[in-house]
């Protein structure tokens, strides 16, 4: 079976009591959710004047992301399609208001009243047609259209998504743009398969200086550090970029790793049970040139 929850069952069925329970018992899930929502808060870039805002949490689930909003002193309204998840949120006694609603049916809010919106790992669900009456395009259109209407002018929406493939990403972003949003995708840690997170940062209103999409984390790092190599994708980039690497750079890396590094590696190998030559005063020394 696929590891993507979107392919297993509709959200209101997938997030049953058992799945929802994980969101209070698993410290790993809690930590990831907290990190994602903190980063989303950061990207939301609310003015730093200490005034609480009215925010929206789309797909609030058990209210883990809402807790981050509360910690920052904001009032929030959360909506989710899973009753089980909302029950967990009630148990956790979250401070925001909860609603059982389907974002694909549009958000029923008055125009221009919400100061910002976040959504953690929810919007990609819209790309699935779980019932015969569902059309992903119509649902995306209804969602982004109503989101655009209810946001105040200049307000931002930060939606963390897990698109399945390039087509899905383009579909989501396309509908966001068609609804009138300005903005784009911020990718944190683009070179890592696990840590990679995508955020749609959308600004309501015409594009301006403040609408510029912020930088993703871990983007500036060199993509070709040879001793990292975790995924296949990464190895590929290493091969290609090696060919074009300037000569000078190679010289710097040739300098050697030093005695400390060698000792560490030998220790590692010993722990693995490999046969390793004993450490002597000659360990990690260079040979003389005449040899």
């Amino acid at each position, binding site marked *: 079976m696929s590891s993507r929850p979107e392919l297993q069952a509709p959200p209101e069925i997938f997030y049953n009591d058992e799945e929802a329970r994980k969101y209070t018992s698993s410290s790993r899930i809690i930590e990831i959710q907290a990190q994602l929502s903190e980063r989303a808060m950061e990207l939301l870039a609310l003015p730093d004047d200490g005034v*609480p805002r009215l925010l929206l949490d789309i797909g609030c689930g058990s209210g883990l992301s809402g807790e981050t909003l509360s910690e920052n002193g904001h009032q929030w*309204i959360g909506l989710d399609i899973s009753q089980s998840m909302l029950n967990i949120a009630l148990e956790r006694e979250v401070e925001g*208001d909860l*609603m*059982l609603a389907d974002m694909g*049916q549009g958000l*029923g*809010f008055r125009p221009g009243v919400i100061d910002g919106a976040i959504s953690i790992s929810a919007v990609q669900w819209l790309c699935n047609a779980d019932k015969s009456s569902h059309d992903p395009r119509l649902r995306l259109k209804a969602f982004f259209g109503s989101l655009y209407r209810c946001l105040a002018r200049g307000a931002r929406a930060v939606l963390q998504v897990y698109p399945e493939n390039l087509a899905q990403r383009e579909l989501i972003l396309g509908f966001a743009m068609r609804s009138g949003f300005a903005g784009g995708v911020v990718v944190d840690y683009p070179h890592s398969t696990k840590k990679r997170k995508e955020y749609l940062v959308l600004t309501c209103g015409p594009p301006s200086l403040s609408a510029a999409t912020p930088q993703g984390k871990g983007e500036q790092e060199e993509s070709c550090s040879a001793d990292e190599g975790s995924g296949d994708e990464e190895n590929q980039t290493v091969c290609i970029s090696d060919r074009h690497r300037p000569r000078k750079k190679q010289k710097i890396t040739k300098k050697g790793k030093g005695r400390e590094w060698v000792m560490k590696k030998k220790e590692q190998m010993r722990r693995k049970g490999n046969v390793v030559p004993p450490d002597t005063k000659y360990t990690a020394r260079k040979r003389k040139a005449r040899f």
Partner: protein
Amino acid sequence: MRLLTHNMLSSNIKGVANGFPLRIEVEKVVEKQVDFNADFLKNMFAKIEWKALVDASRSMGYSELPGDANPSMLDSDDFLQKFHHALLELHLEEGALVCPETGRKFPVNKGIPNMLLHEDEV
């Protein structure tokens, strides 16, 4: 559900032109203490539909709010306290929200309104 949320919500049914404000049918109201924050209230005041808030708070059994309000009243501490109480501390625990145009009921259970639409209402 607080009246803050009620004041933002409107009926989302297809073909409904004016789904605001949703009428409240009360079965049970609870009050929860919330920290008072004058900045938030002043910020929110412009966005609140005052008449809807007054009507909603009356249907919840709180009739202290004045029928008319203007921004100059925000300097009065007494007014802000009442505003705060009505907006953030009154919770509709059990009951229903009723669409003003179609009469469709959205049930509220354990403080959570069920705003899911049927397939023919989308």
